[in-house]
Structure formats: C-alpha cells, structure tokens
C-alpha cells in the first residue's frame, strides 16, 4: 500500500496543473509532500503527518496533502478522520482516483458497503483501464455475499491485468463460496503460478481440495502453506484434518497439537482484537495484544502492534520498551540500542532508558557508553538498585575498578537485598581474592534463592578457591 500510494502521488504531482506549479507556496508544498511520502514509506507516520499538514496549509487548493493526511490516519487506525480528509481531497478534486480508492477501502472496512461500491464505481469510471477498481469492487461484492457479481468484476480485472495473483486468489476463493470447486482450484493454481510464495493461495487450494475429498493433494498444498508460514493456524488445522482423513494418525495428532498451541495464543488476544475492531485507536488493547505475542515469542506480531502504537502516539514509552525487549530477545543488540537511545530522547528524565542503553552498550562492548549510561540512570533515579548492580557487574566482568564495583554493589543491596545483587557482590569479592566475604555473600543469595544453580556453582568455585588458597 505504501509504495502504491507513493507511485500514485508521484504520478499525480507530475500531472499538477502548471498554474499551481508556478507559485512558490505550491513548490514548497510539493517539497513537504515529497518528504511526507518518504516518511510515510518509512512507516514514520507522525513525521509524515507533519509534512502533509504543512503542505496542506501552504497550498490549500491542492488535494494531495489531504490524501496524504488521510493515509496517515488510516495507518493510525483513525478511520473517521481518514474519511474526512479524503473527502476534503475530493471536494477539491472530485476525480481523484486515489482518494476514491482509499475511501472505498475504508468504507468497506467499516462495513458501509454501499458507499464502498459507489467509490469503486467512481474509480472504474475515472480509470476504466485500471484493474484494481474492478478487483476492489469484486472484493466488496463478495464480502456482501454477492458472489456471482463479484466474479464478473474479478474477470474484468483479470482481463486487464492477467498477471495479478491476488485477483486470481480472490476469484478462486469466491468460486469456492459458490461450490464451483474445480474452477476455484484452477484460479488458485493460477495465483500460485504467478506467485508461488503466496501462502493464502496454498491454503485456500488446500481447503478446496479438502472439500473435494482429495485429501492427499490437500496435504501437499497445506504443507506448503505451513512451510511458508509456520503460524498459519487455519492451515495447521486443515492439515491435521487431511492427515486424519488419509489415516496418518501420528501426523494428525502432531499437527493438531501445533494447531492447539496457535489457537491458545489466538484465544488470549481475542478480547483485545474485538476491542480494536470497535476502536482501532485503543492503545491499551493494542499493548495487551503485543504483550501476549511477546510472551509467546511471536516477535513479528508483537512488533507490528508496538509499531502501530507508535504510529498513533510516537512517544509511548511502553511500546518503545517492548521493541527494545523484542530486539534483545533476538540478540539484535545494535537495533535495540538505537531504540533505547530513542527512549532516552523521548523520555530524557526516565532512568530505565539509560539502563537499557547501559545493558546494550555492554553487549556491544562500548565501555564508555556503558559507564555513562549507568551513571546517568543512577543520577536520574538514585533509589533504583538496578543501574548500581549492572554497572558493578560490568566492572566485574571486565575486572576493572573492583573497588568502585564493590561500592556500587553495596549501594544496590542497600536499596534491595536481591539474591542477584548478592551474587554480583560475591563475584567481585571473588575477583578481589576476598573468598570468605565472597562465600558469605553467595550464601546469603542462596538462602534467598536455594534453587538457583548459578549461585550453587559460584559457591563451589569460591570453596575450591579457598581450598587452593589454603
């Protein structure tokens, strides 16, 4: 969608009337538009909005800034504002295809199908050689259950653009609703010939083959779907069913198990997804969804939600923190560090941002940055033990400034006598050769967390050192 918009806007800018292009304000507006498009393409919706808004105020007679604003709102889930902006564009230029196309999609999303159809028909009238108008109209008609009419539109779209796999896919799916299974299979195979990596077409092909009781073939199609997307719940479900039908009980049970795991995550996010259906700008629901995905290590899904939160509200600390943690979990420390730095810029008075900068700089062995970051974190929140402990541990790991490390660690323990801090202290004493003190510290940690094997191992190391020393 992003690239489509960009291309569309470029074409439309080229087509601007010369009268507009003469004025300085319009030229400035165009530059804002270009920058806005770039931000939009990069997913930086807030920056894009700023540029589009400036373009709009510089050249109120230009419709495209309104389109840009509308698209940003779409990305932010602010559908009503998006509709209003796109309608403003149309009030200036009633024949703006891109605005009709976007409005059609929005009204379709809002289940206002009559309006969606009106706008798609405008698209078709204004750009009769463009396949997308027919395809879009076909989707709306199919969603309304007007399958035969939808097929007519898909056929028109394919006649213009026979190489679009998506349209063949929609055609196949719609034929399936009408129980025209062989034709559906044919359309889906065409979709896959044009784009062999199209997961949904593999999946739908599998479903159509299941309906025809061609279970062996269905297994092949569905296996491809799950190979391409291992979290495709529906494909797993049908694959399990297909295995069961051909008597492959073990595979059926194993695949059912995978399906159940995916289903459980789905169930957990369901209430929040419902809330977002009603209000796509519900940040709390989006955050809860992201957290659930993150807990199940569905990093991509989690990140999408965090990014959407940021698109709506760029300075949301919780979302930035979420992304930092996701990147850390993937051991992408450089990217995580960039996000941590962003957090310190967004929330310069928040110590946790600096703590993350410290942690991540340590991973990347950026010694000076580690010390600076932890010191800043301590300055900002002297009551929090984390930065004290982390910096102490950093010194211990590198065997530098162990005196300072002891002092830092004791500060952490004064604030919270957590076993992990006592463990840090034990390690520092150990490095300093103060074995009885090290033993005392690690025994306190073990008393608080007797099951921790790391502490037990450290105690053993200390005892061994004592023996050697003696």
């Amino acid at each position, binding site marked *: 969608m992003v690239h489509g918009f960009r291309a569309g806007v470029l074409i439309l800018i080229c087509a601007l009337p010369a009268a507009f292009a003469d004025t300085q304000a319009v030229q400035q507006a165009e530059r804002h538009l270009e920058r806005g498009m770039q931000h939009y393409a990069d997913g930086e919706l807030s920056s894009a909005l700023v540029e589009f808004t400036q373009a709009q105020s510089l050249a109120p007679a230009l419709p495209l800034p309104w389109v840009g604003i509308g698209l940003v709102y779409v990305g932010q889930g602010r559908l009503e504002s998006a509709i209003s902006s796109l309608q403003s564009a149309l009030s200036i230029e009633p024949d703006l295809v891109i605005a009709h196309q976007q409005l059609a999609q929005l009204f379709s999303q809002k*289940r*206002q*199908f*009559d309006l969606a159809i009106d706008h798609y028909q405008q698209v078709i009238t204004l750009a009769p050689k463009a396949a997308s108008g027919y395809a879009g109209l076909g989707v709306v008609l199919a969603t*309304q*259950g007007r*399958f035969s009419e939808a097929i007519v539109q898909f056929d028109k779209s394919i006649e213009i653009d026979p190489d679009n796999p998506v349209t063949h896919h929609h055609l196949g799916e719609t034929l*399936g*609703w*009408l*129980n025209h*299974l062989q034709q559906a299979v044919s359309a889906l195979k065409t979709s896959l010939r044009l784009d062999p990596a199209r997961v949904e077409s593999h999946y739908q092909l599998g*479903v159509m083959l*299941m*309906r025809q*009781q061609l279970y062996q073939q269905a297994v092949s199609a569905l296996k491809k779907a799950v190979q391409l997307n291992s979290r495709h*719940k*529906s494909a*797993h*479900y*049908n694959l*399990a*069913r297909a295995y*069961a*039908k051909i008597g492959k009980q073990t595979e*059926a*049970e194993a695949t*059912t198990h995978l*399906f*159940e795991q995916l*289903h459980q995550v*789905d*169930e957990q996010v*369901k*209430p929040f997804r*419902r*809330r977002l259906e*009603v*209000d796509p700008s519900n940040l709390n629901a989006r955050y809860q969804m992201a957290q659930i995905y993150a807990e199940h290590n569905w990093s991509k899904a989690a990140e999408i939600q965090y990014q959407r939160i940021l698109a709506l509200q760029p300075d949301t600390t919780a979302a930035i923190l979420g992304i930092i943690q996701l990147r850390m979990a993937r051991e992408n420390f450089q990217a995580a560090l960039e996000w941590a730095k962003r957090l310190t810029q967004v929330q310069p008075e928040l110590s946790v941002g600096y703590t993350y900068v410290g942690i991540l700089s340590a991973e990347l062995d950026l010694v000076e940055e580690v010390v600076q970051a932890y010191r800043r974190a301590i300055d900002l929140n002297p009551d929090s033990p984390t930065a004290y402990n982390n910096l102490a541990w950093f010194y211990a790991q590198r065997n530098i400034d162990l005196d300072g490390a002891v002092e830092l660690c004791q500060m952490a323990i004064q604030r919270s006598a957590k076993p992990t801090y006592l463990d840090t202290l034990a390690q520092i004493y150990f490095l300093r050769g103060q074995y009885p003190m090290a033993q005392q510290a690690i025994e306190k940690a073990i008393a608080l967390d007797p099951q921790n094997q790391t502490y037990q191992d450290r105690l053993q190391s200390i005892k061994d050192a004592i023996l050697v020393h003696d």
Partner: protein
Amino acid sequence: MKPAFASSIRIGCTYLFQLCLFLWFNTADILANDYFRAVETGIQFRHQPGNSGQRYILETVSSGCAFLDYNNDDLLDLYLANGNRLSESTTIKWKNELVMNALYRNNGDGSFTNVTQTAGVGDTGYSIGCGVGDYDNDGWIDLYVTNFQRNTLYRNSGDGSFTDRTRAAGVECSSWSTSCAFLDYDRDSDLDLYVVNYLDFQLTDHKNCGDQLRPDCGPSEYPAASDMLYQNNGDGTFTDVTSHAGVLNPNGKGLGIACGDIDNDGDPDIYIANDDTRNFLYRNNGDGTFSDVTLLAGVGFSEDGEVQGGMGTSFGDYDNDGWLDLIVTNYQDQVNTLYRNDGNGLFSDASYTTLTGPVSYPMVGWGTDFFDYDNDGWLDLFVANGHLLLNVAQFDLTSTYHQPNFLFRNRGDGCFDLLDLGISFNRSSRGTAFGDYDNDGDTDLLILNTDDRPVLLENRVGQDQNWIGLKLVGKTSNRSAIGARVRLTVGKQQQMQEVAGGGSYASGSDLRLLFGLGDAEIVDRIEILWPTGEVETRIAVKSGQYLTIIEQRVE
C-alpha cells in the same frame, strides 16, 4: 391548499397508524407461504427479554420452547420459556407475576388454552430453555426449565399439574443455564440430565466495551460456566457426576446441546455448541465416562479452524447413510456448520458443499433441526435466525435485528436448496421446537421470537406425501424411549432417526418420530434399536398412521 395538504397527511398518518396497529395485533393472520401457515392460536404470550436499557448480555440470548404431551391425550401442548423484566438496578426481583413461562394445552382444534396456573409451571425466574422427558418413568412427561440462576424441575403429577421437585432432586444448578437434555447416558433405563451453562455472570459484572452506539460486551469479556451432568439415581434424586463422567470443562460457554449415537455403538454421545469457545464432542465410553474427541473428530471449529459463536445444534442423518450428521448454528459473519459424519470417527465440514453455509453468513442462527418437511424421505433443515442487538442496523448495514428464518430442502444429492419463506416471517427468532401438533403427519414448528409473540407454523405440504409416525414407549428402557434408534426401509432407501432429548436451541421437540415416505404406501421394514440394546422389527407397515410401539421385553 396548505391546510388541506396537511390534513390529508394527518389522515394518511392516522390511517397508517391504524393499519400498523391492525397488522401488529393480527400478524398471525397474514403469515403464510407455500410451506407454512401461522396458526391463529389465540396465545397471548409475549416474550420479555428484560428491556432494562442497560444492554445486559443476559438480554441477548432470549429463550426457547417445547412441544410436549403433558396430559397424554396424544396432542402436543406448548411450553414457552420467558425472560423477565430487568430494571436498571442489578438487584433482581423475580416476582413479576405478569411475566412468566407458560403452558398451553392443545384443544385439538387449532386453539390452545393457557393452563399455566393450574399446571403450576409458571416459572417467574429469568428462563432461557426447557427440556422434556419422563425422568421418573411414571408415564407422564416431566419438564426441566433452565434459568439465569436457579433451574426448575417440574414433575408431572399426572392430574394436569406439576410439582417443583428441584431441591429434592438436587438439580438446582444455580448458574446461567441455557439448553438442557434428558438422556440415558449410562443406559440404566432412567433419564439422566445434562445442563448446558453459559457464562459465570451476574448483573453486577456488567460492563461496557464499545462506543455509545455499540456498548455491548461479547461473551469473550466474561468467564465461562462449566456444564453439569446429573445422573438419575432412580429414586427421584440425581447425583452430580460432571467431573467423574469427564465432562467438566471450565472453558465452554455453552448454548446448545445435541445427544445422539455418533459412532453407532449403542450409547448416546453428547455435543455442545459453545459460544466464543470451541465446541465439545463427548464420546460415550460405555462405562459411565466420556472422552472429549472434538479435535480429532473435527467438530470443534469452523472449516478454517476458527472458534465460532455456536448457538443451536442438532443431529440428523441427512444423507441417509446410517450415521448421524451434525448441524451447528453460529453467529453473524460465520457460516452455520454442517458436519457430515464419515462413519470412522471423523467428520467432514460440509457447510459449503451442501450449500447450507454461505447463505447463513450475515445471519445469527439459533434453533435448528433436521426434519423432513415435505415427507420425501430426505431430512431437510430449518434454522431460526435473529440478531441479538436491537440497533444492529445502525452500525452494520449488512444486518438487521429481524432476520429471515431458513428452510433448506434436501435435494437428496448431498445439496440443499434454500426456500423462500417470505419477508413477513422475519423476526428475531430463537428457540424452535419441532413436532406434529395437529397429528396430520407432517412436522410443524413452534418458534419463540425475542420480545415478541411466538409463532406456531403449520406445515402445509408434508401431508401431500405419505408418512408414518412412531411413538415409542420404553418398558425396560426409559419410558420416553430417549436414545432409541429407528431404521426404516422403503424399497432401496433406508432412513434413520433417534428419539432425542435436547437439540435445537434451548428447546424440546416432539418425542415421536416422523418419517416421510414419498409415494410409498407401505413401509417394508421398521427396526427399533432400544436403548437397552434390544432390537424389534415390524414389517410391511401401512403408512399414514401414528404407530405406538411398546417395548416388548419386560424383565
């Protein structure tokens, strides 16, 4: 000109208002199509969903109804469950005597008499459903009513009245119960009771989830309430065996139940249609326990493996292959699911290939059953529809509160045709009971409509074909013969039906079995498999009659 113009408008409005009033009070008179005619019953019952203004989720599920012959005069009487008025206060006072369940005695001439008071079955709680069966084997049909909070077991005294035996029998189940079914799961010849529960919800738990137009919270916002299975002790009391029997599942938000022998092993299995959670298929192990075989059987989800909003459900052998198939009605934007029984423990989703699914996509489906409306020997399918949000059309142009009900004609080739019932039938329908109220040999429908009057639809076409009705009376088996299976042979065609407690949505249907015979005047063979396992046969039976078959073997 102006005054005259205004006057004519006023006259027009007055006329229209009077016309509306006329239509409002005489709806039954004009309801007719090629298949059914609404009977002018004289019934004054009107369903009350609550109308609190609070949009409690309780007010959405509405209620069911039942056909039952409570006075053994061989005429089906009607029982109608009712909600109750709910105020803005979360304190419920269940003593509004104007709103109660109702029992109507069939006078045999198309009219009905309200006998609620004399029968003593005017439950004034907030009722959802009802189930029928002779749990004490005394020859008189009993009644169980599911409520929001305390359920009620009415024992038929045999003199036209019932006695509330709930507490003594131990079947109060103070949850939010919806559907229920009498069944003899342990095959000890007395009827046990499965109670389907929906949500663990009190009015004080109510919350808003959406915007002003659509504030309603769906079931995903509230925890589930586990179902209950009560084993009949044979002495008028029951024991809660939910956990022991293996049907304790805290994750089900149950609305519908169907009981039937899905694996042809002689004992009843149980299917639960859950809303917003996967459905349950409990296979009877034959030792007093059940196994949840939903996932491997493939009946827990939609074709896409998605959880659906299951409402009503029923078993029936629509393809006459000797295996019970399964229909589940679902919420809007989901298709109703028809699962074809493959006969090997697996089911296939036939919703699309039978053409029953796609058309249901915009509807909210409730009461349902397979029945042979035209007596051609193939089970057809009925689905009652109705949205649960009164203002749905304000925010969703694809939907309406009142929706058309569906009658699907079985073509006999694995597909169904949707028949046009006409717009005048559109209501927000819920529970539906199936039975031959006028004993003319075809199946009539009793439909409970939310916040509206129920409608009794007389079948206009079934009597044009031959038929045979069977009233089974258990002796060694339970008296209601629930769980008995009949295989009927006419020429090369075999049909199979079971006497079922439960099915549809929150409703109880005629316990007699009715088979369509097409143009065949003689049934070649009737084979009855009683719940005890005994088999009886009748050969060369004349059509056009209700045959009472009393189980032969008496120990």
